[in-house]
């Protein structure tokens, strides 16, 4: 007897549920095992109380904030300008923004180390501050595909030509147009790109490890090879952060649809 497609759909869905939830349960259960013989939040206490955790997490958090600000300031005027004045350049810009998905990050950072070493024309890796800036640039390159797409989609929904002409006829300069007209209008789109950037930067490992910066990613790897239960607690925390970022993206997208529907 052939079963109905619905039956097989449930089977497939159940299998997917099993595969995707068992590691989450395993990770959570493992993180509770720090005390012998009973479940406890000891691993979390150890992690959250670890000054190293606080420092590296703070470092990555600040890094994410700077990356977002820099990325938005770089991408928004560009996307705006290309739509307004240089539509013929669009394919080129889009191609560039997709490159970070093509070139493995490890190769990009390898290039940085070779290009910005202490004996180069721009010795960024010579100082801690310089390396931090280089790391931030690297992160904004990683975020480029998502950030550009998000902002460009946001720009598509508003009539920038008319808005810009109206602002200009009222005497607004480009700075005013950018900060008081364009940015507020694409804010929701920018925010969804920003949360994704945050999720990428906070746990990033390769760039931070190879540029030798005290970020959260290398700290997690260090914990992984030195502790038993704390890594699982870190994984739970990281999962919660990712989930929060994605949740906020959905929330903002839904809110913006609402507002547009009202308008």
């Amino acid at each position, binding site marked *: 007897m052939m079963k109905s497609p619905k039956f097989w759909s449930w089977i497939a869905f159940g299998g997917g549920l099993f595969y995707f939830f068992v590691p989450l349960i395993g990770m959570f259960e493992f993180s509770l095992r720090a005390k012998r013989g009973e479940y406890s939040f000891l691993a979390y206490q150890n992690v959250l109380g670890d000054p190293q955790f606080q420092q590296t997490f703070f470092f990555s958090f600040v890094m994410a904030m700077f990356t977002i600000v820099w990325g938005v300031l770089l991408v928004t005027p560009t996307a705006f300008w290309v739509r307004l004045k*240089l539509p013929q350049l669009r394919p080129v810009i889009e191609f560039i923004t997709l490159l970070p998905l093509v*070139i493995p990050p490890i190769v990009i950072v390898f290039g940085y180390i070779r290009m910005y070493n202490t004996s180069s024309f721009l010795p960024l890796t010579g100082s801690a501050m310089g390396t931090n800036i280089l790391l931030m640039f690297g992160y904004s390159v990683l975020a480029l595909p998502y950030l550009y797409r998000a902002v460009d989609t946001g720009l598509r929904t508003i009539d920038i030509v008319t808005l810009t002409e109206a602002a200009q006829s009222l005497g607004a300069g480009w700075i005013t147009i950018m900060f008081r007209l364009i940015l507020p209008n694409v804010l929701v789109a920018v925010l969804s790109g920003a949360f994704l950037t945050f999720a990428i930067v906070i746990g990033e490992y390769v760039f931070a490890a190879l540029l030798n910066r005290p970020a959260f990613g290398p700290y997690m790897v260090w914990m992984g090879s030195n502790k038993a239960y704390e890594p699982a607690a870190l994984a739970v925390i990281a999962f919660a952060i990712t989930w929060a970022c994605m949740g906020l993206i959905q929330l903002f997208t839904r809110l913006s649809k609402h507002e547009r529907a009202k308008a």
Partner: protein
Amino acid sequence: MTDAAAIRPQDRATTPRPRRLPQGLLKWVGVAPFLIFAALFLILPTLNIVVGAFQTPDGGFTLANIAGLFRPEIARPFWISIQLSFVTATLGCLIGIILAAAVTRGGLPKGLRDGMLTFSGVASNFAGVPLAFAFIATLGRLGLVTVIAKEVFGVSLMGLGFNLISFLGLTLTYLYFQIPLMILIITPALDGLKREWREAAESLGATGSQYWRMVALPILWPSLLGTLALLFANSFGAVATAMALTGSSLSIVPIILFAQIRGDVLQDPYLGYAIAFGMIVITGIANVIYIVLRTRAERWLK
């Protein structure tokens, strides 16, 4: 004087337009910061590596570095990486489309579909170090599944030859971000399958499997192959998950390159550039396939 005025964009609205050339140049000023940034921190660093792959230590041209890629100790990791990426991409596509078809076409409640898409968004970003920890906590020596298998079912996974630090273990782990990525990409394509096509097929007497085999799959084929290429590149460049899972005991290309950048383990920096170049070539080919096939697939989705 007119040139100086043209460089300051704020003045554009008030100063009368001088001649055509500055006006044309002015247009480019708007995208200059982005292009300079992209050149300095994306394109030139990559080119730098590519050039290095063809250089001798004193700057002459050579193919010896590239030839070094075919030495067994380098060629083997490349081959393992290619196999790993191919297997996880294929399984990711297959399982991803089954799950996506189940929630979009299988008559399951609509809430499940939204839930699965949201979860896929999270899981496809839950890669790297934490993902490795989750799998160690589940299938590692003391992991939940390992313990349950032993204490409840009396089966020792280790005894069966299972080891998380292996090809199989990495495959299981990588699928955790490959399948969700497939679901995210293929769901819109499945939504693009028009109801009329199914009805037309059924009115001609086609069964469900005939519809999938002779109508839906041929239409989806370019998207499927394209996504396969994307997933391939996605897993080929993954470093953090493999590092955190295996330390550096499994020889796959990204791990070899990581060790090489850290401490020149190959004792030949130029071979390092060649390895990086090899990685770009492979992910590059995969992405070109993806882009070409996606443009073809989009014809049907309008």
